[in-house]
Every structure is written in structure tokens, then in C-alpha cells.
């Protein structure tokens, strides 16, 4: 993609003012988000790259929207910290793209998603106005919280140039546990059991496996207590759920990579609640899929996007396609329009952002 890459906010403002239709692109790591852009001018975020302010003591980090997630993660790691919302594509995406598409990984399970960690942003809107939303401290209740609104906004309301997040100390150690279950209902029972239990899991994922289903759990904490915690977890799952076999394994990375092995032309994120999984799964049992963050998010790979679109609509679900040549990345139920349209009317009245 040949994008204009404004080097400054001024250049970005000029770009917005000069074009009728503008589409924002970061690293292009989620190609499906860009197919519908048509002839719109492409605005690259690469000019807004780099960490602007990071104060480990404050648990806050501010970076340009075009900063690769990997750069941020590496800098945080140097200070024993991390982004608890766990960006989904740590090696290929920019932080802006991660926010715009609201893409979290498995470890989001522990403390929350992007909306829970975004503190503020600088943006340029459809009228070319550059301004700030939210704040830069971990707690702030002044004004409307438009920074949260940007999460999942797909660049349709304003272009982010700078983002501020709350960050956390990273737990020193991680351990993973994998258990096999005969069928989906068994695994959902196990998830419900865990939902009402005291275990503070770092990640809770499940997916169909060779024989039956595989439940992947991850615990984080101190080295000297992790073994007993994981043992207790394992024992209670064995005693109180229908787990067949499995145990502690060297599976931390597998637990953290929800997209591994999801081959297919299109890859779709589906937002759902665990109780909606049986209905969906019965219809996608022929597809590669994985249920992430305790069954609150599904990843489905398909070659037939139309079918999935219709299915999601039928089930009252929404999907976002991030891989494949989708004409529109949004699937299933239409988005809310009443409130969102008012924001659009204010930030992008001429409908420039597509």
C-alpha cells in the first residue's frame, strides 16, 4: 500500500483537509481492515513513531500511535512491566492499529482489555482539528472520555497520533496447565466452575484438539508459590470438572498465542459471552476456531465469509474480520448507530474517514 506518511501533526492536518476520503493504516498487519478503503487517500501512521514518555514509577506510558507494539513491549520489559491488555499481534502491529481494532490477546483475561488501560490520546479529527482526549495520569474523571471511544473505532472518527496507557509490573513467572475434555459442554462447565472460584488466571483459552477439547490455563506469580498454586488448580479441576488427562506443561507460549494454527482465508474475531458458545460452535464445528479470554471472544477461520456473516447475524453476534480480502471487515449484527452517529457528526461531519 502506498500511503502518505505525515511526519507531523501539521502535515496530517493538511492531509485531512486536502482529501475527501481518508483511510488510516499502520503496519497493515490486519489486511482485512483495509480492503474497503477503495480510492481513499491512505494516511500512514509511521510518522508518529516512538515512545514519548515513560515513567515506570507512574505506571504510565505515552507513545506515538504508529509505534510498533514490539518496541513498546521491549522497553516495558526492561523495567519489569508490560501492557496487561496484551496486544494480539505483538510482532507485527502498531499500537494505534491495536487500539483502533480493539485486539487483545489471551493475557487480557487477568486485568482487562484496551478500554481498561487506555488513559488518553491525541487525535486529528475529520475537520483537521488536532486535540487531546482523556489525560495522562492513571486516574482522571474530567470531561467526556473520548479516549475509550477510540477503542474499536477503526479510524472512522479520528486519527490517533499519540496514546497514553496505564501499565503494570509484570509478574515474575508464568506456568501453564493443559487439560483435555471430551466435549465442549464439559469444558464450558469447567470455565463456569473457574468463574466462580478464587483462581486468578492469567489466561484461560480453549479449542478443539485431536481427541476432544483442550483447556489451556496460565497462572502468573512468584516462582516459589507457582508450583503449589498450579498443583492446587490442577487438583481442583481434576476433582470438580470432567477433565480427562493432561497436566502442567511447557505451554505458556501456546496459551498466549490464540491465533496459532487458525488457517483459512479469513480470520474473524467474534465478541460473545460463554453462554453463546454452544449455539455458535454447533454451526462452525467444521472450521478452525479457538475461544479466548475465558470464552468471551471467539476466533474463527473460514474460507466462506458470507456464510459466517449470515450465521453471526442469525445468532445476534458481531464479528470483525482481520485477515482476508473482505469488502467490509464488520460482520453479523450492525453496530449501534444512535450514539455513535452523534460522535461522527461532531468529529467527522463530512464523512472523510473510511
Amino acid at each position, binding site marked *: 500500500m502506498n500511503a502518505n506518511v505525515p511526519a507531523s501533526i501539521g502535515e496530517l492536518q493538511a492531509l485531512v483537509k486536502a482529501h475527501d476520503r481518508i483511510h488510516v493504516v499502520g503496519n497493515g498487519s490486519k489486511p482485512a481492515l483495509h480492503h474497503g478503503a477503495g480510492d481513499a487517500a491512505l494516511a500512514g501512521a509511521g510518522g508518529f513513531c516512538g515512545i514519548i514518555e515513560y515513567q515506570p514509577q507512574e505506571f504510565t506510558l505515552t507513545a506515538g500511535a504508529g509505534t510498533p507494539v514490539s518496541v513498546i513491549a521491549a522497553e516495558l520489559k526492561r523495567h519489569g512491566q508490560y501492557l496487561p491488555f496484551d496486544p494480539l499481534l505483538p510482532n507485527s502491529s502498531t499500537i494505534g492499529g491495536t487500539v483502533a481494532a480493539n485486539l487483545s490477546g489471551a493475557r487480557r483475561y487477568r486485568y482487562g482489555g484496551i*478500554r481498561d488501560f487506555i488513559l488518553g490520546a491525541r487525535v486529528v479529527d475529520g475537520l483537521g482539528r488536532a486535540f487531546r482526549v482523556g*489525560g495522562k495520569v492513571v*486516574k482522571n474523571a474530567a470531561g467526556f*472520555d473520548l479516549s475509550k471511544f477510540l*477503542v474499536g473505532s477503526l479510524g472512522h472518527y479520528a486519527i490517533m497520533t499519540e496514546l497514553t496507557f496505564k501499565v503494570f509490573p509484570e509478574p515474575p513467572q508464568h506456568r501453564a496447565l493443559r487439560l483435555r475434555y471430551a466435549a465442549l459442554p464439559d469444558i464450558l462447565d469447567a470455565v463456569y466452575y473457574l468463574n*466462580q472460584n478464587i483462581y486468578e488466571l492469567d489466561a484461560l483459552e480453549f479449542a478443539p484438539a485431536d481427541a476432544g477439547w483442550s483447556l489451556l490455563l496460565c497462572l502468573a506469580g*512468584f516462582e516459589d508459590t507457582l508450583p503449589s498454586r498450579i498443583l492446587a488448580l490442577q487438583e481442583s479441576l481434576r476433582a470438580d470438572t470432567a477433565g480427562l488427562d493432561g497436566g502442567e506443561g511447557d505451554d505458556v507460549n501456546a496459551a498466549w498465542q490464540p491465533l496459532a494454527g487458525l488457517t483459512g482465508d479469513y480470520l474473524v474475531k467474534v465478541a460473545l459471552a460463554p453462554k453463546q458458545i454452544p449455539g455458535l460452535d454447533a454451526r462452525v464445528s467444521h472450521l478452525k476456531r479457538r475461544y479466548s479470554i475465558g470464552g468471551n471472544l471467539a476466533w474463527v477461520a473460514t474460507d466462506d465469509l458470507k456464510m459466517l456473516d449470515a450465521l453471526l447475524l442469525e445468532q445476534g453476534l458481531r464479528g470483525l474480520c482481520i485477515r482476508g480480502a473482505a469488502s467490509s471487515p464488520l460482520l453479523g449484527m450492525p453496530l*449501534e448507530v444512535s*450514539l455513535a452517529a452523534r460522535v461522527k457528526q461532531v468529529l467527522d461531519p463530512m464523512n472523510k474517514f473510511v
Partner: protein
Amino acid sequence: MNHPFIQALQQIYPAERLLTRDVQLLPYESDGLTAFQTKPGAVALPVDEDEIISTVRLCHQMEVPFVARGSGTSLSGGSLPIADGLIIGLNRMNRIKRIDPRGRIAVVEPGVINLHITHAVEPYGLYYAPDPSSQSICTIGGNIAFNSGGAHCLKYGMTSNHVLGMKVVLADGTVTQFGSESLDGVGIGPDLVGLFVGSEGLFGIALEITLRLMPAPQLYRTVLAAYDNLGRAGDAVSMVVASGLLPGAMEIMDRLSIKAAEAAVAAGYPPDAEALLIVELEGEALQVEAEFAQLQGVIEESGAFEVRVAQSEEERARIWKGRKSAFSAVGRLSPDFIVQDGVVPRSRLGEALQEIDAIKSKYGLDVANVFHAGDGNLHPLILYDGREAGALERAEALAGEILAMCVDLGGSITGEHGIGMEKRDYMPAMFSDQELEIMMALRRAIDPKEIANRGKMFPGVEAPALQQHGLHPLEKQGVISRE
């Protein structure tokens, strides 16, 4: 109040749920901030969604401003009535409609009291995390409007982080729904829940709210450390953070607030402490014990002269009761006081406290300090005697200087109480004209007649101001100007 409007309301409400007599209206003229008083034109007490929707539509149609009110505990005057406007009292919208312990969610009406949710889900080993000090009486609707915080925000966030979905009526009568029962909330598309929460009642009224519940911690370790000066307690917080720990709560109280809280609830705080630090760890027992061992080491090195660890749930409850009563308890020390709410970067807490010390001596007033140290959220309580001529003005000026300092240090003019009436004139210290204009435009896009909680959040003259004389404190300091 105008008759056609009252007559139209009478079509919606039976007489006993439509209050119009002075004696019924006067008790509604203030919320938790008594510096402002405005008698509303009427108070309507809806019992279902349809009544709220009809009422909002009627207000929109007849251009009558309204304020949605829960228990009236706002400390920023957020639910102050509008003269001749309508109060929509949501106290009877207090049903917990559904609890799904397996999915860890609760679906509630806006008038449900915060703590009642925790009581209702306790049997399932769950709780509702946000814990503003007034949690025994404040309602979820109010928590949503002001994105209420509490002592445990650092780790688990504020109200916004615990709302997954909602059905709302916008100020122009449009009913809409966003979010879901998924932990991912809105999940796909812009996060409208995040936008609505904290909008201070200017967008509309939440009718039904889906809340995230959390598993009740298996173990709490609550440590009370006493220091002989405030700075040392502040340093202890930095040391805890630097050690890599992430406590659920870190609170500091100074000598005056300790005295007040002690008088109120006999919390058993060390009597001769200049500052108290409360640190609470919670979670899985094994993990908490390991963190606790680390915390003890840090506290030991921090120079505390006395360290106590709550030995039972009763002791823990007493420690928190003292802390949570502190604001109101100051009523024992002084006939009047202003509760302030500002945020500074945590690493500059010490600096901020010294600055407050300097400012207060300048004004000759006492300031009690209670704060959420973990997230740099200060709550200076400025004590004054309103019967003394000029005392209120001095207290306000002092408060203004503290807020200006928060902004200067890179913080915020409010961490959790919101702007409401109290701080609307300080908004220009935090936001540029353009940023304010964009927010106001958004408000008008949703509420073209500006009827929902008119007069709050934005600087202006549409609602009665605090008895202010001359320049605003921030103007005097040159932080803002009206030109």
C-alpha cells in the same frame, strides 16, 4: 413550575410519585455538596423504564431541563437540581434484574445501591469491585454518570471498567443499547460504554446496566503502617511500587483525618501517628502470602514506627470503615469543609503534599489529607467556619490553588468526583478552548436543547454559581481567563 408540564407529568405519575409541594422539594435542593442549593420545580419518582423514557421525551418536547438523581451523594454537586427543572429520582428503580454467577455478570436498574450488588452476589463467591466511600448508599446510576472510583482503582479500575453493557435513553428521547454480556464489552465497534460512563448525566439516563462481577478474593492482607511524618508515608508508597508489587489499595491519611475518623468509628488507628498508610493485598491465598512477605520487608524499611496487620475480617472492616468515614467525619472537627479531589503523578505526591502545606499556611486554614496514594488521587479537606466573614472565599481560593497545582504537576482536577457544579470553572485549566468546544458540540449533538443536567461540567452561567465574589481563584493566579 409551569402548569402544562406538571399536567403532562400527571399523565405519567400518580400523585404520590410526583412531588410538587415546597416541603417535598426542599430536601432535594442539595446533594452531598451543600455549598449549592437549588429548589427543583418537581420531583418525579419513576418505577419502570417506560416512565423514565416518557418523562425524558416529555422534557425534550417541552424543553424542561432535568437531573437524574440517585441517593444524592455527589461531592461535586453533580445532582444539584436546576431551578424550575425536574428531578428524576431513580431510587425506586432498584431491582437487580438478573444475576448470572456462571457468566459473572449482574443486570441491574440504575437505582440499585452499589453495596447491595455485592450483598446479592456474595452467596456465589463474587463481588462488585468499585467501592466508592459512599458505597453503602450511592447508586449505580450515579456511579455511571460520574465514573466513580474508590480505594481499589489502581488494580481493577473505576466504574467504567466494570460496566459491560447498557440500555440508555438519550436526552432527546432516543433509546439505544450498547455493549454486551461478554467480558469484552462492546467488543466490536467504538466503545460507547466507555463514552457514556462518566458523562455526568449530560447524555441521558442509563435504564439497565450489565455489570462485571469478580471472584471474591480468597485472602486479604491489610497492613496499617504509622509514620511520624507524611512525607515518609508517601515515600513508602513509592517503595512498594518500585518493589514490583501491585496492591489492591494504598491509602494515606494524615493526622487530622486520622483524628476525625477515630472519633467517628473508633477504628483503632495509632493515636500519635502523623500519617497512616493502609496497604491491602488480595487474591489467591498462596500468592497473597508471598506478596505479603515481600510487602513486610518493604514496610519495615520504610521507617514506620508501628505496623499492624488485620488479624480478622472484623479488624479489616474497622480499618476500612475509618478510612471510608473520613470525609464525613471531618464534620466533627469543623462546621464547614470543602472536599477536594485532584490527581498528581504518584511520584510527585511528596512535592504536592509539601505544596499543600505551604498553601494552607498562607491562607491560615487547616487542611486534612486523605488520599488514594496508589493512583495519586488527593482528597484535601479544607476546613473553615462559614460563619466567619470571608472564610468560604478563602477556602475556595485555597482549593483553587490546590487544583492549579495538580494541573501544573501534570495531573487532573478530578480523579473520581467529577466536575459537576463544583469544578466547571476549572475545566479551562485542563482543556483548551477547542477541546471544550468539541465536548460541548458532542453534548449538543446528543442533547440539542441542553436539558440533561444543564449547567454541569462546562463553565457557564446557565446555573446558579457558588457565592463567588470577584475573580475566580484560577483567574487570580492567571491560570485561566475569561477573555
